[in-house]
């Protein structure tokens, strides 16, 4: 196992009688962009929630940097270095863009209740550092001009980017992106893929759930395909595109037969 960052071992989760994720094995190597694809209801978001600690798996294990994180709470997992964005952006609407990103610094800072109430001098330094780091991220994302804007007043595409910046503010080793291109136009999607590549280049491993196939095939190093909670295929994008099982679930039986002949 070369630099295995995230290791998913035989993870299952069901809701009532529905097996949302069933016996999935997978791993994410450090420094790669890995995509998770599959039809609606394939269990992609559930898999994300299992990794991020929003849900606990019914069986199986998740290891991060060789440490078991199965059943840990999301705030612990965030502290360990896994950040996420949500399918429907979840910004803090009445806080400013800058404050949103500043909240992202939470797991890397430490001023507590007492220090905050007494406004101890060392917290000023920390507060300045939080602000400058957040501002630097906003500049990197070309969002500095709207830093003082309330998050709920932003366009959809901007909200996505703020959520991105906020997740990166936690200094994650692994970033989980849940359908980052949903609702974006083609220009925004193009900018997004460049953004994701840049994030990867600064050393953040990305795991992306996405429906936009051109985005997936262009940027990912590896693709995991899920259908009805089960792993159908896994491998480099080229191989996935030719995989008959994958073609079957996306395009139907006929196309699969054609590609095999």
């Amino acid at each position: 196992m070369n630099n295995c960052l995230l290791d998913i071992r035989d993870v299952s989760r069901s809701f009532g009688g529905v097996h949302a994720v069933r016996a999935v094995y997978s791993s994410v190597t450090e420094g790669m962009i890995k995509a998770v694809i599959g039809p609606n209801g394939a269990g992609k978001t559930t898999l994300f929630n299992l990794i991020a600690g929003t849900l606990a798996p019914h069986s199986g294990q998740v290891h991060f940097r060789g440490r078991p994180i199965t059943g840990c709470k999301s705030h612990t997992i965030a502290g360990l270095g896994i950040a996420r964005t949500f399918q429907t952006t979840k910004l803090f609407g009445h806080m400013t863009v800058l404050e949103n990103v500043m909240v992202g610094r939470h797991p890397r800072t430490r001023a507590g209740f007492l220090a905050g109430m007494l406004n101890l001098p060392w917290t000023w330094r920390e507060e300045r550092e939080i602000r400058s780091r957040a501002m630097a991220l906003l500049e990197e994302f070309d969002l500095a001009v709207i830093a003082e804007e309330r998050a709920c007043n932003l366009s959809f595409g901007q909200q996505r980017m703020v959520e991105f910046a906020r997740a990166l503010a936690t200094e994650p080793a692994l970033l989980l992106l849940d359908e980052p291109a949903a609702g974006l136009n083609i220009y925004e999607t193009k900018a997004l893929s460049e953004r994701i590549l840049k994030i990867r280049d600064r050393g953040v491993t990305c795991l992306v759930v996405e429906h936009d196939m051109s985005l997936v095939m262009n940027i990912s190093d590896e693709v995991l395909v899920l259908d009805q909670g089960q792993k159908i295929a896994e491998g480099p994008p080229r191989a996935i595109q030719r995989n008959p099982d994958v073609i079957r679930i996306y395009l139907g039986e006929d196309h699969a037969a054609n590609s095999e002949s």
Partner: protein
Amino acid sequence: MPLRRYAPVMCAAAMVVLIQVALSTTGNPYYMTQITMSAFYAMVVVGLCLLMGYAGQASLGHAGFFAIGGYVSAVLCTVNLLPYRDAAVLSALRSLGLLHIWKDIYGAEILSFVPWAAFVAVLILAAVIALLIGLPVIRLKGHYMAMATLGFGLIVYRIVIGTPLFGQADGISNVPPFPVGFGLQINGRAAFRVENYYIAWAVLLGMMVLSIHLVHSRIGRALRSIHENEEAAHSLGIDTYRYKLATFVLSAVFAAIGGAMMTHYNGSIGPSEATVMKSVRYVVIVAVGGMANLWGAMLMGVVLNFLSLRGVFGTFDDAVFAIILIVIMLYAPDGLLRMPPIHKWKTLLTRRSRE
């Protein structure tokens, strides 16, 4: 930046002095008594504002914490331990200076805790009780949490009214004044009126400063983010449960401080302080102030309680607070201080009536 933060505190302090001077020179010093009592009530409101406006948790049990503060200090300061004076524990406490002998108004000797010891006990007990109540209750969401804390408030009321130690329906009287140091004491007698007016405001404004610092700190940001979207806050490494619990405990301690000071000031406390309507009143005041608006909450806490104590609302006291709640929710859900400007009122009213 920090200067801008302290400017309102300075303004408030100046107003406090101005009001005192105005009342003393115009020969209406007795207004100060009600303002002082309103300031004690406002301490509950400030804590509740942190809990409701910033952490987003509703509590209908804060009169319970106010009563805990009042009753614990009343009991500890008035219970007569003279018959047990030779017990080893008591002599140990006496040698530590936690107990003293004093004479009540009838001249009888009483061996009881010194007010400072009682006050420390209030702080600890309120925090512990809030922690124990909060541990299960904070897990509840929205109105479920409101209902659970309502249950807590009811329990406190029933315990107070059913326990001989707490004086049942009569409450506890003859609570001694509280010498707070620097030659000052919390004492309701007319001679101490101005002094206590300033003590109450100093403590209230002190709480405001602590709260304002908190709101602008890393923790305050985390609390607001929990209020906005708990799942997202959680995913950013914020231990939402712990922070909500800590805020609950903090607000309970603020309430208990208000209760303890009020009890020493009045020299007594009765079960009316523990009623559910008092809890509702605090919630109403936070809503009128604008939920996440500490200054609004404090101002309304003082003004509305002052009017109530002056008897402006007459026998309809509780009804007035209920009506205020309804009106605020309908026409100014962001609080009275952030009301839409007057010119918008016309359209607002006609729109409402057409609906």
